[in-house]
């Protein structure tokens, strides 16, 4: 079958550079998940802890992705999302051999993330339920901080309940906005990040209870990887991926048409 010149209406489309950058950083972070002392790839090939690198890559993917989303929608939600994960980046940098930054440990920076979320959504959210639930969590946050700093007060059960309330409010708030944008992978990422990976170390930190047991490598290895995987899902936006695949498909058609037209002109 021969095509004549101009028969195809396919047009060459440019790939969005930001989408490409997001995919590259997300892919790098994803690869890092598989480097560990327990397999499948030895982490001795990676300088320092692979989760540190994964944390850097996934944050760069997030900030690039959400910047693009912000340009498209002008919705502050995307900036809040990027801002919320900035303390998580710093927390992940503790996988490198560095001293504490500003006196906060990993848990401290997670607390900053929670505070950023509550402050921002209290100020910005126009949905009353979300606004006031974030405000009430913001008011309860100092109580949790005091209970965390002074465990001798003996209110660890209250701290567990508060920490679960915090992650549930964050997850619901983020999921609501993600649902408005039909970002279903973002919802899945939020669930993995806040409702699966965070409660496990929280529960251990507060009550000493380890779901996987003392020597279970899963305990040390899996929670960080679930969190990173959740963050990767949070940047793999379905609409962006659809656009990306569509552009690739149209370009494939364009080049195929050009090739066929070149071949037919030679007949």
């Amino acid at each position, binding site marked *: 079958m021969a095509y004549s010149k101009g028969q195809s209406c396919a047009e060459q489309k440019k790939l969005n550079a930001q989408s490409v950058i997001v995919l590259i950083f997300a892919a790098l972070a994803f690869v890092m998940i598989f480097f560990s*002392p*327990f397999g499948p790839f030895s*982490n*001795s090939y990676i*300088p*320092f*802890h692979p989760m540190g690198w994964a944390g*850097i890559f996934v*944050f*760069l993917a997030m*900030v*690039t992705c*959400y*910047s693009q989303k*912000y*340009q498209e929608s002008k919705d502050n939600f995307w*900036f809040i999302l*990027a*801002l919320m994960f*900035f303390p998580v*980046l*710093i927390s992940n*940098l503790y996988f*490198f*051999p*560095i*001293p504490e*930054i500003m006196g906060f440990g990993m848990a401290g920076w997670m607390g900053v993330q929670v505070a950023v979320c509550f402050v921002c959504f209290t100020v910005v959210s126009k949905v009353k339920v979300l606004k006031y639930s974030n405000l009430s969590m913001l008011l309860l946050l100092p109580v949790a901080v005091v209970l965390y700093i002074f465990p001798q007060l003996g209110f660890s059960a209250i701290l567990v309940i508060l920490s679960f309330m915090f992650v549930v409010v964050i997850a619901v708030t983020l999921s609501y906005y993600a649902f408005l944008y039909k970002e279903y992978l973002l919802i899945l990422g939020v669930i993995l990040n806040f409702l699966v990976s965070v409660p496990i170390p929280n529960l251990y930190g507060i*009550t*000493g*209870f*380890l779901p996987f*047991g*003392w*020597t279970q*490598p899963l305990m040390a290895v899996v929670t960080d990887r679930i969190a990173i995987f959740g963050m990767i899902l949070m940047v793999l936006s379905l609409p962006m991926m659809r656009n990306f695949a569509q552009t690739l498909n149209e370009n494939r058609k364009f080049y195929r048409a050009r090739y066929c037209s070149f071949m037919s002109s030679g007949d």
Partner: protein
Amino acid sequence: MIRKRFLILIITALLIVTVVLAFSFYPNPTRVEYIGGKYNATVTYWSSHVQLAYTDETGHHVSGYFDEQMMTGLNWINSSTPENATFLCWWDYGNMIKAVGERNVIVRNPSHEIINSVADPSSIKEFDPNEKIVDVSSALTTTNQSETVQIMGKYNATYIMIGKDDLVNSVWFFKAAGLNYTDYLVNQGTSLSFTDLGNNTMIARLLDDRNTGPFALVYQDQQMKVYKLE
């Protein structure tokens, strides 16, 4: 076009990441302490850890973990035990006893089989035979003190050193000895404790200094206990 607020966020993140990577790849020690002695030991204090380096009798350059709080106990070992004494202890303390205490140890590295017990496996450059690790573990986890004496005799060891972290380490003693640690240890709130069966093991008895049989407590501080085989 990236918005200004995102640009600020990206630039700040990149600056912090650059500083962290520079600090990680080109670290500066905060302090270097020369201990000297028979093995020319040096302790280097990094921001994230303290490193012990020394040269053993074979001319081999060795580096390992160092706990500065154990310095008093290590100096006691150096000054108060016979020069040819051999210590039975978990491998974590092996390099410290060797370099600062200047005494022989049965193990000072993990075996390949227990590498999962190491927080940062990439820091381990040498390995000891698993047979030695199993022997040390068995000597500490047995309920029969004669077995401990027999294993110590195999290596001509006359001292046992127990660190304050050995309750937590004992999870690995039981695993390395081929035992089910949950039969011996139980999680109680934020801490770990021995079960009734675990309380009969040598490690529990040595940690509590009770019913130690032929082992006499010769030194103790907040960080360690040293027992001598009488």
